[in-house]
C-alpha cells in the first residue's frame, strides 16, 4: 500500500511535469504569442519590445525559461511557495489569486458533487429496484434528457427562467461565504443544480446498471437463501458492490472537474480556475496558464490515486499494485 502510494505519487509528479512541458510548448507555438508586445506600449519601438521581453524573462532560451519556472516552483519565489510567479496580464502574484479562485471552483464542485450524489445514487437504486416499472422508465428518461442536454444551454435556460423571468434568484457572480452565507448560497444554487443534474443523470445510469448486474450475482441468491429480508439484501449486500465503482468514479470526476467547470464558470460568471484559464489563454498569460494547468493535472492525478485507494478500502479483492 505504502509503496503503491509512493509509486503513484512519483507518477503524479511525472504527469504534472509532462503536462507543464506540453503547456509550455503549446504556449510558445502559439503564433506571435508574445506577451511582451502588450507591455511595450501603443507605439512600440524595437527597444521597448526587447525591454519588455527582458522584464518578463522571455528573452531567455526556452529550456532556460522552463528551468527557471521549475526552479521557482520547487524553491518558491518572492510570493511564497510554490513559486508561480506573477501574471503577464495583471502583474499580480499568481499564488494568492490561485487560492482565491480555487475556493470559488471548490465551492461549485463540492456543492454540486454533494447534490449529484444525493440525487444520482438514490435515483439509480430506486430505478434498479423498480426495474421495468413506470418509475424506472420515467426516471431513466429524465436521466437521458440531462445526459444529453449541453450544460451551457441548461445554464443559460435556467438563468433565463429563474433569474430573468421569475426573479427568484439574485443573478450571477460569486459572493464569498465569509461575506454573506445567504448570498453565497443563493448565487451558487443554480450552478450546483446545473452541474448536479448532468452528473446525477450519469451517476443514476451507472448506479442502476451496477445494481442490475449485482442483483443477478450468485451471492445475492445466497443472501436470499439465508433467509434475509429483501431490505437487508439491498442495504447490506447489493449497495456496497454496486456503489464501490461509483465512489472511485466520483473521486476521478472531482479531479477532472477542477479544470472542467470552464463552461459553468463562464455562464454563471464565477471567477474560478476554469474562467481564469480561459482568460489567461486568451491573453497569452503563461504563468497563470502554467499554474492552473499544474493544479488541474495534479488534482486529476491525485484524485485518481484517492479513487484507487478508496476502491481498495471498500473492495477487499482489489489489491494496490
Amino acid at each position: 500500500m505504502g509503496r503503491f502510494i509512493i509509486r503513484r505519487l512519483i507518477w503524479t509528479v511525472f504527469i504534472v511535469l509532462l503536462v507543464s512541458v506540453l503547456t509550455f510548448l503549446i504556449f510558445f507555438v502559439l503564433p506571435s504569442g508574445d506577451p511582451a508586445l502588450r507591455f511595450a506600449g501603443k507605439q512600440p519601438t524595437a527597444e521597448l519590445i526587447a525591454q519588455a521581453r527582458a522584464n518578463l524573462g522571455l528573452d531567455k532560451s526556452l529550456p532556460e525559461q522552463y528551468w527557471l519556472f521549475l526552479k521557482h516552483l520547487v524553491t518558491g519565489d518572492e510570493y511564497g511557495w510554490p513559486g508561480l510567479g506573477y501574471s503577464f496580464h495583471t502583474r499580480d502574484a499568481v499564488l494568492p489569486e490561485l487560492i482565491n479562485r480555487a475556493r470559488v471552483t471548490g465551492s461549485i464542485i463540492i456543492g454540486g458533487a454533494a447534490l449529484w450524489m444525493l440525487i444520482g445514487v438514490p435515483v439509480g437504486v430506486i430505478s434498479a429496484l423498480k426495474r421495468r416499472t413506470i418509475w424506472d422508465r420515467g426516471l431513466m428518461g429524465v436521466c437521458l434528457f440531462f445526459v444529453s442536454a449541453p450544460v451551457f444551454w441548461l445554464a443559460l435556460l435556467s438563468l433565463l427562467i429563474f433569474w430573468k423571468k421569475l426573479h427568484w434568484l439574485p443573478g450571477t457572480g460569486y459572493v464569498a461565504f465569509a461575506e454573506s452565507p445567504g448570498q453565497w448560497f443563493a448565487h451558487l444554487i443554480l450552478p450546483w443544480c446545473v452541474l448536479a443534474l448532468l452528473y446525477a443523470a450519469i451517476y443514476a445510469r451507472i448506479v442502476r446498471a451496477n445494481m442490475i448486474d449485482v442483483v443477478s450475482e450468485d451471492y445475492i441468491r445466497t443472501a436470499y437463501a439465508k433467509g434475509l429480508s429483501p431490505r437487508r439484501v439491498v442495504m447490506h449486500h447489493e449497495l456496497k458492490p454496486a456503489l464501490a465503482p461509483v465512489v472511485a468514479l466520483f473521486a476521478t470526476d472531482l479531479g477532472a472537474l477542477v479544470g472542467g467547470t470552464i463552461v459553468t464558470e463562464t455562464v454563471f460568471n464565477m471567477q474560478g480556475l476554469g474562467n481564469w484559464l480561459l482568460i489567461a489563454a486568451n491573453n497569452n498569460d503563461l504563468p497563470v496558464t502554467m499554474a492552473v494547468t499544474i493544479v488541474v493535472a495534479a488534482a486529476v492525478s491525485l484524485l485518481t490515486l484517492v479513487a484507487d485507494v478508496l476502491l481498495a478500502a471498500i473492495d477487499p479483492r482489489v489489491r494496490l499494485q
Partner: protein
Amino acid sequence: MGFIVLLVLVALFAGPLASLIGHGPNELFQNDMLDDFGLPKGPNGDFLFGADASGRDVLVRMIYGTRVSLKVGLFATLVAVGIGVVLGLLAGYLGGIVDTILSRIAEIILSLPILLFAIGIVTACGASKEGCARGYVKPGVTLVVLISAFFTWPVMYRIVRGVVLSLREREFVDAARSVGAGPFTIMFREILPNLISPVIVYASLMVPQAILFEAYLSFLGLGVPDSIPSWGRMISDGSAIYDVAWWLIVFPGIILLLTVLAFNLLGDGLRDALDPKSDR
C-alpha cells in the same frame, strides 16, 4: 432512429430546404430583422425561428448546423474508433512493452485537462490559414474532429484492449495459432470480427459525446468559423442577449438536445441488442 434519419436528410438537403424557405445561411437581413440598435427581431411568418444578432435566419442556420454536428459526430468517432481499435488490438494481443507504452499514453491523455489543451491547440492551429502540422490540420471542422478524436481514442482503446485480453486466451485463437497464423492475421482476421459488437456499442455512444464536444468548443468560441453555422456557436452568440432574444438559445438548444438524445437512445438500443450482458 427516425429522428436521426430525418437529421441526415436535413443535412443532405440543407440547400434545397433553405431555398424553399428563401434565405441563405449567411444571408443578412439587416434592414428587415434588426432594429435601430442592431438587435434581432423574433419569430414571425417569414422567419419562423426569428433572426440572429447579424440578421440571419435562425431556422436556416439550424438546418445547416445539422451538417457540422453530424460531420463531427461521425468523423470524430470514426477516427477515435480507428485509432482505439488498432492500438487496442496491438496492446491487448502483443502485450509486453507495446501494451505498457500504449496504456501509459492513453492514461496520460485521459488525465490531461481536455478543454485547456483544446483551447491551446485551437489557438495554435487556428491562427493562420495554413493551420498547423505542415498544413495538414486546417482550422474548422477538421480541427474539431481531430481534437475530439485525440482525446477520446483512449476510451475505445481501453475497451478493445480489455476484450482482446480475454479473447486472446480463447480456443479459436489457439486454434489459429496452432495452424501457424501470424500475429497480424490473428489480430485482424480472428480477433477483430469478435470486437465488432462492443465497438459498435461504444462507438454509438461516442457520437453524441463528439457532438456535444463540438458544441462546447463552439460555445467557448473555439469551434468552427462563424460562416459555417453550428448549434453551439449559435447558442454562444445568443448568450449575450438571451434575455431580449430568447429564440437564439431556445431553438438551437432544443435541436442540439434532441440530436444528442437521439444518438444516446440509439447507443442504448444498440447496447441492449448487441451486448448480451446488458438487460434493460
